[in-house]
């Protein structure tokens, strides 16, 4: 049952990816709503899957790596639906859906992830993970908008103005969306960093050194992007590049934890 639901969710995500990409590259006018519908179906299957494997009562939520990845994937999907309602950027599904799919598949390797051992569990840890997951979700949207901005800008400079250029949103919308997502994600990331450090100090946590360093780099990048944007009026390509870089570093942090958990679990 669980495995079946996992496969169904993954297949729906993959199908949504393909349909979104087709909509972007081919512009199937008649099937404009189809990718979104499939994506919502994937989210539906995903929520069923989450409920099915939900945490047992004696375990804190978000306590193992598999769940964190799964919830992040789901959160990105939900946030994207909200954003596309707000900004009319449905077509960005072509960039968001692959992210969802990737994280969901990574969560499926979860059998090999060891749950965090009970002694290190605490409310602070839950706060730390929750804030970071939400931050990751916001940065994922910023990443998708930034990537779309780069594509769009390149097409504009190369004078390739039919097809994809017509279907992607305007540069202004993409830039605004990316900025807002970073502005939402950054406080969450900051809070996550503080709670993480706090928790680390309480347990003997020197072992997380690499992930921490990566997290700090991501934080610094986002801080830089925000400062340059707000203080120096930065816009466009460089801001998009910075945002994407920051997101990649947050992914690296996540990957670091996942690898460690896998090593411990294996």
């Amino acid at each position: 049952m669980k495995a079946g639901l996992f496969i169904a969710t993954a297949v729906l995500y993959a199908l949504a990816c393909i349909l979104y990409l087709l909509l972007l590259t081919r512009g199937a006018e008649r099937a404009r709503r189809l990718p979104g519908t499939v994506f919502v179906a994937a989210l539906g299957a995903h929520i069923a899957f989450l409920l099915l494997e939900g945490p047992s009562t004696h375990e804190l939520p978000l306590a193992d790596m598999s769940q964190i990845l799964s919830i992040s994937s789901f959160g990105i999907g939900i946030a994207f639906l909200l954003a596309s309602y707000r900004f009319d950027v449905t077509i960005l599904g072509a960039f968001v859906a692959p992210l969802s799919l990737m994280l969901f598949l990574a969560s499926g390797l979860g059998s090999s992830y060891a749950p965090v051992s009970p002694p290190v569990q605490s409310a602070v840890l839950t706060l730390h993970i929750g804030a970071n997951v939400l931050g990751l979700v916001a940065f994922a949207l910023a990443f998708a908008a930034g990537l779309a901005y780069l594509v769009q800008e390149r097409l504009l400079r190369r004078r390739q103005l039919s097809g994809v250029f017509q279907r992607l949103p305007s540069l202004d919308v993409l830039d605004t969306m990316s900025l807002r997502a970073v502005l939402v994600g950054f406080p969450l990331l900051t809070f996550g960093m503080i709670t993480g450090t706090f928790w680390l100090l309480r347990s003997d946590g020197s072992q997380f050194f690499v992930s921490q360093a990566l997290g700090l780099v991501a934080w610094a990048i986002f801080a830089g992007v925000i400062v340059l944007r707000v203080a120096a009026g930065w816009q466009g390509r460089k801001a998009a590049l910075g945002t994407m870089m920051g997101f990649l570093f947050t992914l690296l942090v996540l990957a670091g934890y996942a690898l460690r958990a896998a090593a411990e679990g294996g």
Partner: protein
Amino acid sequence: MRDFVLVGLSHRTAPVEVRERLAVPRDRLGEELREIAASGRFDEALLISTCNRVELYATSSDPIDAAKRARDALAARLLDFAAEDALYQERGVDAVRHVFRVASSLDSLVVGEPQILGQVKEAFDAAKGAGTVGTLLGRCFTQAFATAKRVRNETGIAQGTVSVSSIACELAKKIFGNLEGRRTLLLGAGEMGESAARSLRQTGTQLHVINRSEDRAHSLAESCGGRAVPYERLTLELAEADVVIASTASPKFILTPEMMKGVVRSRRHRPLFIIDIAVPRDVDPRVGNMDNVFVYDVDDLQQVAEENLSVRAREASLAESIVEEELGAFVTWRRSLELAPTIVALRKRFAEVAEQELRRALPRLDGVKDSDRAVLEAMSRSMVNKLLHQPMTQLKAGAGEPDGALLIDAVRRLFALSEEDAGAKEASTEGSGEAKVTQLTTAAAGSSGDST
């Protein structure tokens, strides 16, 4: 045989000075039509008058002569013999194809523009109001509207726009999203620049005009609804504008990288879209390499327009095939109104009934000899012939009359003779269906002698 006639002129054949002489204001359309129909002795008449075309559609049982009269009617209004060359004429199926193409916006100046369909509908309503539309024009235009609808729904011809101004607007929208409240700076007073600025103004941007000659700047600003700014303020204006349209007559670059570096800094990297439609160019191409500055020159715009056009050409050929399809359907209907196939079909229908009844009756008679059988067969045949004699005579007589088509239509309906029937019969009786189509095109020399 009644057939279609079209005489007119359009943007393809005549400049605006000539077209405006023929144009008929909307409120006078009905009156004018009645006059034309009466003086030209047309059975039906319809007049389309837009800023790009004036066309008179008519039907008459003598199409060749009618075409001449229609041409004279329009030429008389032109008051200029030289301009008469601008008048084109079509007859038969070519005239019908022309209406279908006009209504589908395939003959428009900007192919795919949506207004023309409404204008044709207006012309149709006016003609109906004037009582100059009958069976043929009625069916023809109704099908033209259906064709236009199919073309719009089934092809991409109505999407995308082509002129340089509209491309400038489209690009600006793709960069800035909403243009409301953005600022356009018109630099120089070229004509193309003016029209681009005007279209941008219509999308809700503010417009500032800057020019070496301040008088010119003032008059331009006034006519476009913008604000004139002194030339000394150029760098300041550049820092505040979102879209710059450069169209000065300057022989060398006005916007240089050195100058723009300061501008970009003072505008804090906000995106700037520069449209350089001046020849020679006003903007150093290196400016286009700067971050958040996008420069499009005339060639770029032209290239975009041509790409757009080639997309349209593809869509247009699709649209043409829809027109031909609908035309085929119309010709089938039209052919069903012709006398010969109707008579053949009518005869066949009667003969079939007689034959059926005979076949059913014969087995019930005991010991019918072959000679008796022959008598019975002869009797049923002659009965059919007698019964058909009067209707046939009337049909043949009516063929020359204006309402001949109506009569044929009535007979077809009374005896349920389908349109396809007519086509099939004809193909079998006359060898090829093509013959009738060409007859429609060449209008059979106008004689009603095809009532064989």
